[in-house]
């Protein structure tokens, strides 16, 4: 089957192509060179349409224990947003925490073809993968959480060498079936179990004497030396705390040039100026990002309305429980590996703090120069559900729209921000970098996010529209692995995406230490903890795609 997509306006930053009319050829799910004489089986006329690779959400909580707690505890949120079964689609529901099936359909209908769960506990990886297995159409993958696990902290307290740590990190990535490594409130989740209520960058864990700075260094080095393409994914210290920008700046410079991705940076960019003792640190943070080329960020934009916050950071989630709306919340300690906290939340435009959070996120987007190093997220569902991405894109691309909304927010928050004077409007090309080419590069997806020969034919086609929210809400076509899955904004075919992983090398001798550790301290055997390739393939619908490693350092 050879398909030709004719005459679209192609935007593919991976090749530096910006709005150039051209044809694409698809065969066996891949983009191929123009064939010299082969018969075209199907031709689709895209003249005048904008053609991009399928969008990639590099940080979205779509599967795993905390997400499922959020679903279970929010029946009232689902009831207002039910989705009936059709011939094609299973039924589902959910605004803030949608069912897996609905999440996959909705992502595809918005032109997204991949989403990455950023916080997979090793012991909960089985559940996360089972949920992602039930998420249709999009590709998926996850970052495995380390940094509050007692095994790592014991290694560090025993001053084990970096090679031993690298081995443990590689083993964990491999047997959790992950594509990267995340650290959440480094060491803080562990410290909370010892009743510590805050842990700053240089504050010691009460039992181990280890600091977050040590943990970040060890893990960032491990990820880099193993050649894992996705840099260490960091949810920093002091999330949501007024004044946390100092810690964030210190974290950026403190990593000493190692590649590091700082996630939902908006929640870590707060100062303590003004009458409310809460101010924007976005300008200083953006300046630091611009100056430190080893740093990438995603924003974690908040948008107004009801949502739910679900995080591994139970230390900070517990501290914020009094803000729960509705007033119910969950905090868990989990298996000497980590924890989680789930707190429903309603962002209000007439709240000074929420209004300023909205501005801080947008300031960050607009003040960071390089779209290859900043990514479009709402930290779904923590800042807002992923279904609000088209709205967020319009905020970035349309200054008038942005300033109109801003003018309706809490007046003192308006006065506390320079956002209204920021002229920048994102171009389609920059949006394509953030949501396609840059995201694929950041996650380490060699065959996605681009429209060049050999890439998977994940393609989204839009009609350009003055109202960018409208444009990005309803693509004309979405192709997943060469198959048309969306037409005129509606799903027409359900397929099942692959799971992206990396498989860094490790020395099997690590199991000589891990097995007795599991036997002595855990309630599960090492062998049962590991997730086999067969479990990802599962009933035959799933598949694994092993992404290549970078040339790493010493192992």
């Amino acid at each position, binding site marked *: 089957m050879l398909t030709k997509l004719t005459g679209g306006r192609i935007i593919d930053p991976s090749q530096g192509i910006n709005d150039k009319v051209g044809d694409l050829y698809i065969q066996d799910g891949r983009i191929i060179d123009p064939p010299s004489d082969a018969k075209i089986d199907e031709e689709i006329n895209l003249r005048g349409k904008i053609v991009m690779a399928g969008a990639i959400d590099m940080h979205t909580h779509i599967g795993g224990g905390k997400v499922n707690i959020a679903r*279970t505890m929010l029946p009232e949120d689902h009831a207002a947003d039910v989705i009936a079964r059709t011939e094609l689609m299973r039924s589902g529901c959910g605004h803030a925490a949608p069912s897996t099936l609905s999440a996959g359909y909705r992502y595809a209908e918005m032109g997204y073809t991949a989403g990455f769960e950023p916080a997979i506990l090793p012991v909960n990886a089985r559940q996360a993968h089972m949920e992602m297995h039930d998420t249709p159409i999009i590709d998926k993958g996850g970052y495995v959480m380390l940094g509050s696990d007692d095994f790592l902290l014991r290694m560090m307290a025993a001053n084990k060498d970096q090679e031993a740590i690298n081995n443990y990190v590689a083993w964990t990535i491999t047997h959790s079936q992950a594509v990267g490594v995340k650290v959440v409130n480094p060491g803080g989740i562990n410290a909370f179990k010892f009743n510590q209520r805050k842990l700053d960058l240089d504050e010691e864990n009460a039992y181990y004497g280890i600091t977050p700075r040590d943990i970040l260094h060890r893990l960032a080095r491990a990820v880099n030396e193993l050649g894992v393409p996705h840099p260490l994914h960091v949810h920093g210290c002091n999330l949501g705390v007024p004044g946390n920008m100092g810690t964030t700046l210190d974290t950026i410079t403190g990593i000493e040039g190692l590649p590091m991705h700082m996630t939902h940076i908006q929640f870590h960019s707060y100062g303590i100026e003004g009458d409310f003792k809460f101010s924007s640190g976005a300008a200083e943070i953006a300046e630091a990002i611009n100056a430190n080329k080893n740093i990438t960020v995603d924003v974690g934009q908040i948008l107004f309305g009801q949502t739910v916050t679900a995080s591994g950071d139970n230390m900070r989630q517990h501290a914020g429980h009094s803000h729960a709306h509705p007033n119910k919340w969950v905090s868990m300690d989990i298996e*000497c590996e980590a924890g989680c906290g789930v707190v429903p939340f309603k962002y209000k435009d007439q709240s000074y703090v929420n209004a300023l959070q909205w501005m801080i996120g947008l300031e960050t987007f607009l003040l960071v120069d390089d779209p290859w190093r900043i990514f479009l997220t709402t930290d779904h569902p923590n800042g807002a559900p992923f279904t609000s991405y088209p709205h967020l894109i319009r905020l970035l691309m349309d200054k008038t729209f942005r300033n109109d909304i801003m003018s309706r927010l809490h007046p003192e928050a308006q006065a506390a921000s320079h956002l209204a004077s920021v002229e920048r409007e994102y171009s389609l090309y920059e949006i394509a970098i953030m949501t396609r080419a840059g995201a694929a590069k950041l996650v380490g997806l060699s065959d996605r996010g681009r429209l060049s020969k050999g890439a998977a034919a994940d393609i989204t086609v839009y009609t350009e529209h003055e109202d960018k929210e409208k444009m990005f809400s309803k693509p004309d076509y979405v192709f997943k692995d060469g198959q048309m899955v969306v037409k005129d904004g509606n799903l027409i075919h359900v397929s099942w995406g692959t799971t992206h992983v990396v498989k860094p090398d490790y020395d099997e001798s690590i199991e000589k230490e891990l097995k007795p550790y599991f036997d002595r301290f855990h309630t599960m055997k090492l062998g049962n903890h590991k997730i086999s390739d067969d479990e990802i393939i599962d009933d035959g619908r799933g598949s694994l795609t092993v992404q290549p490693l970078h040339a790493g350092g010493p192992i």
Partner: protein
Amino acid sequence: MAESNDVCVFHEVASPFCGIASDDLTIEVSGQTVSVIENGDAITKKGFETQITDTEPRIDGQEVSLEEAIAKAADIVNASQQPVIGGMASDINGIRAAMALADKTGATVDSMDSDSAFRNLLVLQDTGWMTTTLTEVRNRVDLLLVVGSDIEADYPRFYERMVWNEVSLFDQDTSSRDVIYLGKAPSGDTSTSPNGQKAQVLACDDNDLPEVLSVLRALVNGKVIQAEQVSGLTLVDLSDLAEKLKQAAYSVVAWASGSMQFDHAEVSIQMLNEMIKDLNETTRSSGLPLGGKEGSTSVYNVSSWQSGYPMRTSFNRGYPDYDPYLFDSKSMLANGEADSLVWVSSFNVDRTPPETGAPTVVIGRSGMTFDQEPAVFIPVGVPGIDHAGRSFRGDSSVAVPLRKLRDSGLPSTFDVLSAIEQAL
């Protein structure tokens, strides 16, 4: 059924039969006979060792082929205006297939252990909680408070694995851990420490727990109580307990909602969990809801991720519609609201369907006997014996892999339910 005289031994086998999901069992399989030879207990032995009897499906008591039984089951569901898929005791893929069938046929899904599960889920949906998991308990607990439950009856190895473990991560002398029962007294001695220290028991009637727990929470919060006795317990003892909870560094409050069978036990469980939240203003304390035997934790997890809601969700209107009271399958059947029942029970031959006049299809473990022969009986393999699978532990964060131990030729629940869906 495949015949073989070879004896195979499997190590580190996980049990889906109790909520702790111990995964250190050694199991010997000889032909079709399964024996737990290491680390077994009454629950796991019965679970693994129950023999296969019938292997042929039946329609109205007459043996038929699997294809005929599936066709008849599909006819029954097709003809039904309001089908119920009950029981739901299976592995993840069996539950997935039940959800798919329910979505397609407009059925209501419910679990055989819903009464117990909802005592917790209603709390989760109303106020939430702070909980912990088994490995944390094993390494951190310094005070274990057991409320309204006799843990060892349903979880015989709880103390061996989670409390009296010899070593723990943080240099604790585990034998000095405090164990206190509030409500029911323990039925055995497993809660007695290796040093011979018996658990303290503050015994009261189940029906008095609402009052006792209210007073305990008040004491934790420093409220003054005028009474000297509460439901037969002295205020001195209760004050002492409140003080111990406040002094403990990592107390764990365990309850088995299945044992708390008094009216509106969920309100008492809520009181307990609000007390735990209060304790966490100054120290650490965590709830440990014990449950989840025979796949029941898997049911609410799979139902939640596929539909947004836990079980007691109806697909009759074409979309998921959740009501923990209206969609109680027992009352739907008793009131004649449901007109067919697909009963899934692949772990335990004793868990048979409720009596009903509605035509019933049983997807059940071989060896099941019935007072009332169902319209269709399809014997299926047991997840973790006859086929591979996965099952959630009672603490929910952890799912264990289940292995295929013998070749019985019995189909899986997933196979049968998927075939019924295909045959509609």
